[in-house]
């Protein structure tokens, strides 16, 4: 028995060491001149945040398919190796290390949540492997080093966007905040909104918090109601927002809700229902934006994934991948430093979520759109906010555009406690997608944690 257990331990250690595979087609630095180009992807494909990972993954795979179909990069096909981190930060670090050291990827895509990106980034930076995060919005991520980029805007910008919209467009003077204290994205947005709203002449009358996974917000909402705000900023995730909206109406709080891109999902209206009508949120793009670029993307996505409408995560991931491939095309060779330099020089990359330019902190400067939740769960374009100092460019969406997807009618959701599940796509070709979405495709649920965007 003693010998057995000693032998066993040795075997385990050997296996641990042996876990790496032999490199194919070149290492990270320099790389071979032929063979596939390996790109690594880290995402939460399982666990409580499975939607984000799978959504992003779909965006990335679509981009890869397009590029490969058009001949690849420098004549070589791209291969994405996607690893699951189960939504855990330390797993993200392990996955990143595996991709860099064992799979010898040339670049990394990921992660959605800022916390997990922060765990990955040092590995990428140390190994001089460029990393592009599609959706991490915390400032600290790109501060890790000059090999870390992001294709989305950062928290300070989104908070500014909604503050500006609230004061200038909605002409509000008093607002309250309900933030998710377990989610740094939410905390960050709340703080920036607070600062900007007050700077622009408004007053924050109440500041409450909840933890993602909570289901009962009556206590906080009753407090908020007592403070009599004109709007409530809820920069959280869609399922919590859905419940919050309903309970807000139940306690008699009728003011509009304001939010961020964490709201963007088909499920938002499904859970929140009528309670959400008249609320606004900032986002990267609008699915209904009739600009050809966006509609082409939406069409391709739906075609590829059985009618599923891409959410903002998928769009951002699509752009992140696209931006990376664009840089790789421009780079003089496929070494880490060269790709990095090309990425840093990205200017006006025509992404689905806007024209992306890398600023000196390697964050994307691009505008945000504000969408209104209108009757029946349709989203109405309500404004585009530019980052300070940037001119208007790109497409202008009309003030009101009907939802392009085939009609959906929310069954009369009378005010009350009961939401009714709406069908966002039409009955018919897409009901299969709906039931598929409901039974098979893992989509995120913030049972315990939320995406740290």
């Amino acid at each position, binding site marked *: 028995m003693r010998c057995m257990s000693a032998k066993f*331990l040795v075997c*385990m250690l050997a296996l641990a060491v042996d876990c790496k595979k032999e490199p194919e087609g070149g290492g990270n630095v320099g790389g071979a001149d032929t063979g596939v180009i390996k790109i690594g992807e880290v995402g939460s494909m*399982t666990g409580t945040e499975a939607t984000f990972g799978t959504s992003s993954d779909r965006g990335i795979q679509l981009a890869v398919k397009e590029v490969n179909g058009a001949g690849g990069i420098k004549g070589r096909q791209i291969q994405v190796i996607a690893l699951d981190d189960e939504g855990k930060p330390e797993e993200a670090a392990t996955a990143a290390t*595996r991709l*860099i050291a064992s799979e010898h990827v040339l670049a990394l895509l990921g992660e959605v949540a800022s916390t997990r990106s922060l*765990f990955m980034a040092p590995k990428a930076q140390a190994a001089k492997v460029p990393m592009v995060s599609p959706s991490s919005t915390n400032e*600290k991520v790109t501060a890790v080093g000059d090999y870390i980029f992001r294709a989305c805007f950062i928290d300070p910008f989104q908070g500014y966007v909604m503050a500006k919209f609230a004061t200038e467009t909605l002409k509000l003077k008093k607002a309250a905040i309900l933030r998710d204290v377990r989610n740094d994205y939410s905390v960050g947005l709340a703080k920036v909104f607070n600062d900007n709203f007050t700077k622009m002449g408004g007053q924050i009358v109440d500041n409450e918090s909840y933890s993602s996974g909570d289901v009962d917000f009556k206590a906080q909402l009753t407090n908020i109601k007592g403070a009599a705000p004109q709007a409530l900023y809820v920069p959280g995730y869609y399922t919590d927002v859905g419940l919050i909206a309903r309970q807000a109406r139940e306690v008699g709080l009728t003011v509009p809700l304001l939010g961020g891109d964490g709201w963007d999902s088909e499920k938002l209206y499904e859970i929140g229902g009528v309670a959400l009508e008249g609320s606004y949120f900032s986002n990267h793009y609008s699915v209904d934006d009739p600009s050809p670029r966006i509609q082409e993307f939406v069409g391709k996505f739906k075609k590829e994934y059985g009618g599923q409408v891409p959410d903002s995560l998928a769009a951002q991931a699509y752009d992140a991948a696209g931006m990376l491939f664009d840089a790789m095309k421009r780079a003089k060779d496929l070494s880490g430093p060269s790709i990095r330099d090309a990425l840093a020089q990205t200017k006006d990359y025509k992404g689905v979520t806007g024209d992306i330019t890398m600023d000196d902190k390697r964050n994307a400067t691009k505008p945000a759109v504000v969408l209104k939740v209108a009757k029946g769960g349709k989203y109405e374009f309500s404004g585009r906010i530019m980052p300070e100092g940037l001119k208007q460019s790109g497409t202008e969406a009309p003030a009101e555009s009907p939802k392009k997807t085939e009609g959906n009618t929310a069954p009369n959701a009378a005010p009350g406690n009961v939401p009714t599940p709406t069908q966002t796509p039409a009955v018919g070709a897409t009901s299969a997608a709906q039931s598929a979405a409901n039974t098979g495709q893992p989509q995120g649920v913030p049972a*315990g944690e939320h995406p740290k965007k």
Partner: protein
Amino acid sequence: MPFFAGSALKRTGKAVRSWLPFFIAIPFLALIEQGVALNPAFRLEYAFQNINHIGIAIILAVSLNLVNGLTGQFSIGHAGFMAVGGYVSAVMLMRGPEDDPYRIFFVLAMLTGAMAAALAGWLVGKPSLRLRGDYLAIVTLGFGEIIRVIIENTPFFGGAIGLSPIPHRADFAWIWAVAIVTILVAKRLRDSTHGRAFLSVREDEVAAEAMGIDTTGYKVRAFVISAFFAGVAGALSGAFEGNLAPQSFTFVRSFEVVAMVVLGGMGSITGATIAAAVLTILPEYLRAVANLRMVIYSIALIALMLLRPRGLLGTREVWDWWRKRRPARVPGRREASEALIDVRHATIRFGGLTAVCDFSLEIRPRELVALIGPNGAGKTTVFNLLTGVYPPSEGTIKVLGRDTRGLSPHAIAHLGCARTFQNIRLFRELTAFDNVRIACHHLTHESMAAAVRQGALSEQEEKWVAERSEEMLEIMGLTHRRNELAKNLPYGEQRRLEIARALATGPQALLLDEPAAGTNTREKTELMALIRSIRDRFGVAIVLIEHDMKLVMGVSERILVLDHGVTIAQGLPREIQSNAKVIEAYLGEKYAKEHAAQIAAAGSPR
């Protein structure tokens, strides 16, 4: 002069020997780290990341094993202590010096974090450890969650996004050095008398208390030590990854460590180590079915509980095969001193029932007293009063001159009052030898630190304990059963073992609760002789609860009769036999008549 130098040399030699494994390991580990792990030519970052994760898992599992496995307390809050240690040390590191080439500041930060974790362990353990197993589990889970919530809500600790960047001060060498230390400490503790104390708490708390072991104290100690090492693991993790986030310290993390301990075998350090390695590396291999990981975990756990509840290794250790047997013993004799049990008007009520009423008793040194009465008379309750299991509702109890009100059973045992139990409360899963050795524990003086250091005192005391225990076994005729598990002994031998164990505590008063129950006539006669010889040899006073009148009459010098909690008679055996009330209540007229001659013939015992 030469003698002096000789013993100093011996001590140094001993110290060197005890730390030797560690001294060999350090250069070896450093070599691997510099030459292999950090060597860019080998590209082994991924492999070593796994290896380092295993190292940290080992620290966690072995430390939790101390509480869950060795001491038998079910704690599911380990991740909370890891978080405390990790965060405190990370905060220090991030505010520390830029360079730390000799890692002095890192060690300081790590120890601070570990101490903070130990403090947290004390704060959590002290109030909770007197709860029953299932409640303790929930409470520790709750504390773990509370710790995590506090961290999440405190901007100083980074809130939801966590702390970064933490200076990278720990790598392969540090992690595995600490892992080895953890295993060594755990092993040495386990092999020492303290380890046996832990085991006794797991096996039977009531009996352990009766043998003089401060069960709550030991539980708290195990908790604090394990929290300390969890804190160390947290500090290492932070300094290795460069990041800390509260999502890493959820209940699920705690449960993963629990799974390692359970899988490896509760109480086996080797098992915990192996299980830690397996359960850390397996998910990397199961990436294809990653979403099944928790499902597989849970099924495996259920299956394990159903099929092999002791885990893979049970309580066995890899080094048990290296163990040598200890040689023969030196006979010892303990002189009797003035012993006194003085009970005055003790009464105890349970709700509406008065179990014992106005009970008074005085036991002088070397007396042989029997306590008899019909079933339910309250005899065992009297024993429980004497040994501190229940405090009296009224009256005073003095043992060896000290008022025992408020004293816990182990303190009373330590004073010199030992007992056996009506239903035999041996440490069933331990050997006869260990059962007796545990009883010697309260007489030792070595500290836990000394046990880990394997200092001279600890070696001496181990030897003394072993010798004493062998002697006790010999007196009881159980030498041939030395290495047999207590539960496997035949009934009569189990009773004798219990007496041996109680004797080993070195009492001045020995309380035997129905020692002859279930024995046959021949065994009873032997027992009579044995009891007398114990009294003669050790000079203890013996108080006996018995139903067998032959034994009682043959052995006791004085008899006390209880009926419904009240003393109805007290005196010499002959007086009791002829006492009308007693005969009525208990003996029966018929008996007295039939055995009168026999009893007279046996003579009044001294």
